[in-house]
């Protein structure tokens, strides 16, 4: 089984043509994809690696500096803070979201819900909402001038904290990403549950298994691969977080700085600071961290397979 460094994806079982027709015809179909793939994905990676090894100096111009940009990043407190923010989201928000998605998928699969199709369809709707709009909506609702928080405060005479204050802004952000993806993950997990053959449940019923034993011994193992894939998606999403904090920034300029996440840092280094070389190093470093994390997740998730 070929295991990729990325998602928990494997190459599909190959149905080999009866006579191994080894010709160039296949390139006719794959060619257009590969050409654009090289131009928009491979070339920028190579170019970014090249950029990250150079530095533009006022005196002396462009010069090769080896890994110096990466070493700068390792000691850069601004980068540390940005990385800390996304790691916190990864280790706090993602588990909460996955727990919610898992419970929702189990509930859908249990056939014990009234109007199950309403739940299945509605919970997935936020996936179709652009992250910009999600951030705008929640940003308005968080707002202290005409948001729901202000409404609640004046309606029942309490004083809820401002969700966009510095103590809560990460939670506010985590809530937006949870809202966006909880239904998406639910669908991935639910589809895995649906693929469990019915006779497994019948056998369990004959053996007198309780509901929780069925969940523990049949349903949770059935979801494991799907859970790894969902976690890898969540990991990539967390490390690359940009749109939501960048949109919220205008509502909370004092708490969301221009380097709130690594991606915002790279963006602002490039477009407000013209430090393209250092920005490229940050981008490549984040790419490597993402791949390592995805690989670790996959290895951990596959342990005990077979």
């Amino acid at each position, binding site marked *: 089984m*070929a295991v*990729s460094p*990325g998602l928990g*994806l494997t*190459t*599909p079982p190959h*149905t*080999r*043509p009866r006579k191994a*027709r*080894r*010709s160039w*015809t*296949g390139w*006719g*179909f*794959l060619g*257009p*994809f590969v050409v*654009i793939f090289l*131009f*928009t994905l491979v070339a*920028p*990676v190579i170019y970014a690696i090249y950029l990250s090894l150079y530095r533009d100096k006022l005196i002396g111009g462009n010069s090769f500096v080896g890994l110096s940009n990466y070493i700068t990043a390792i000691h850069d407190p601004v980068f540390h803070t940005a990385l800390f923010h996304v790691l916190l989201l990864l280790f706090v928000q993602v588990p909460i979201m996955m727990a919610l998605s898992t419970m929702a998928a189990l509930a859908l699969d*249990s*056939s014990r*819900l009234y109007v199950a199709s309403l*739940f299945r*369809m509605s919970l*997935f*709707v936020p*996936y*179709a*909402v*652009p*992250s910009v*709009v999600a951030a705008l909506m*929640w940003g308005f609702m968080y707002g202290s*001038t*005409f948001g*729901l928080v202000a*409404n609640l405060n004046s309606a029942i005479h309490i004083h809820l904290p401002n969700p966009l204050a510095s103590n809560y802004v990460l939670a506010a952000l985590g809530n937006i990403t949870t809202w966006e993806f*909880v*239904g998406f993950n639910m*669908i991935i997990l639910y*589809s*895995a549950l649906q*693929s469990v053959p*019915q006779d497994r449940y019948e056998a369990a019923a004959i053996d007198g298994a309780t509901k929780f034993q069925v969940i523990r011994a049949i349903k949770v193992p059935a979801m494991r*691969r799907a859970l790894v894939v969902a976690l890898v998606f969540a990991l990539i999403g967390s490390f*690359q977080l940009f*749109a939501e904090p*960048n949109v919220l920034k205008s*509502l909370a300029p004092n708490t969301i700085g221009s380097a709130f996440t690594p*991606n915002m840092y790279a963006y602002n280094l*490039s477009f407000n600071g013209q430090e393209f070389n250092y920005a490229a190093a940050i*981008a490549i470093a*984040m*790419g490597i961290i*993402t791949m390592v994390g995805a690989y670790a997740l996959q290895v951990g998730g596959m342990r005990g397979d077979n």
Partner: protein
Amino acid sequence: MNADVRAVSAAGRSARRKSRPISVTTPRKSVLLTLVMGLMLFYTLTPVAWLLINSTKTQNSLSSSFGLWFSGPFSFFHNIAATFSYGNGEFLRWALNTVLYVVLGGGGATILATLGGYGLAHFTFPGKRAVMAIIIGAIAIPGTALAVPAYLMFSKFGLTNTPWSVVIPSLISPIGLYLIWVYATEAIPSGLLEAARLDGASELRIFLSIGFRLIVPGFVTVLLLTFVATWNNYFLPLIMLSTPNWFPLTVGLSNWSNQAPSAGGQLIDNLVITGSLLAITPTVIVFLLMQRYWKAGITAGSIKE
């Protein structure tokens, strides 16, 4: 109705209930579980309801009313008209740009992924193993990590601030190609293709008349994914485009929202809200209508043993 009849019919009901096979597949419905899921539904739909309700308010009543109920003059249609006319009709321009990027970028990505996935599933050719490894690896490369280097490269070619700078990177969907590859492997028996080859049909003709027809559900799934991905794209156009004339809706709306609090700027929260509602309507409708396609396809690849 007398007591006897009632008793008989009650007995009949309970007999029916007893005779229903106690099956693991159709357990009793649970009110409690439905209520718990109802809470989640409430959480999911509240922001959408908020958006709908507040798109009916004027800028003034926005700030003076409870967020989750209607208030003030009903100005939904006025807001829509104002959204389209504000700033010389730039909202309409952004909407058309978005459609352009979705059709060229998302549509193109789906076609390339379909051709490539079919090629990987049913042909053996030199370099195939390398291509497979690189494509699977690329799924994990986050597109946003490449946006800055892609911008620098595109600016060397003079492509930035043109529609091409948004369309060309959107043409590649490694996950889409992967899904078609899995789908085509399962759905097209290679014996069928061999038979057509023996009949002397050209490879293109075989693809169009046999292969493509069998993978239409996979094709639609990938079309949905790329449609949503390009419609919702923000980071790439934000980096590549500098003149509002080429903005898609996402970048345009966030620009409107940024301009509102700035000193001297006219408050246009009502337009940001109405514009947001207009921006999510097409994707939500398309997704709800096409449920059965993505449900089958989206996970086909990821959960395969």
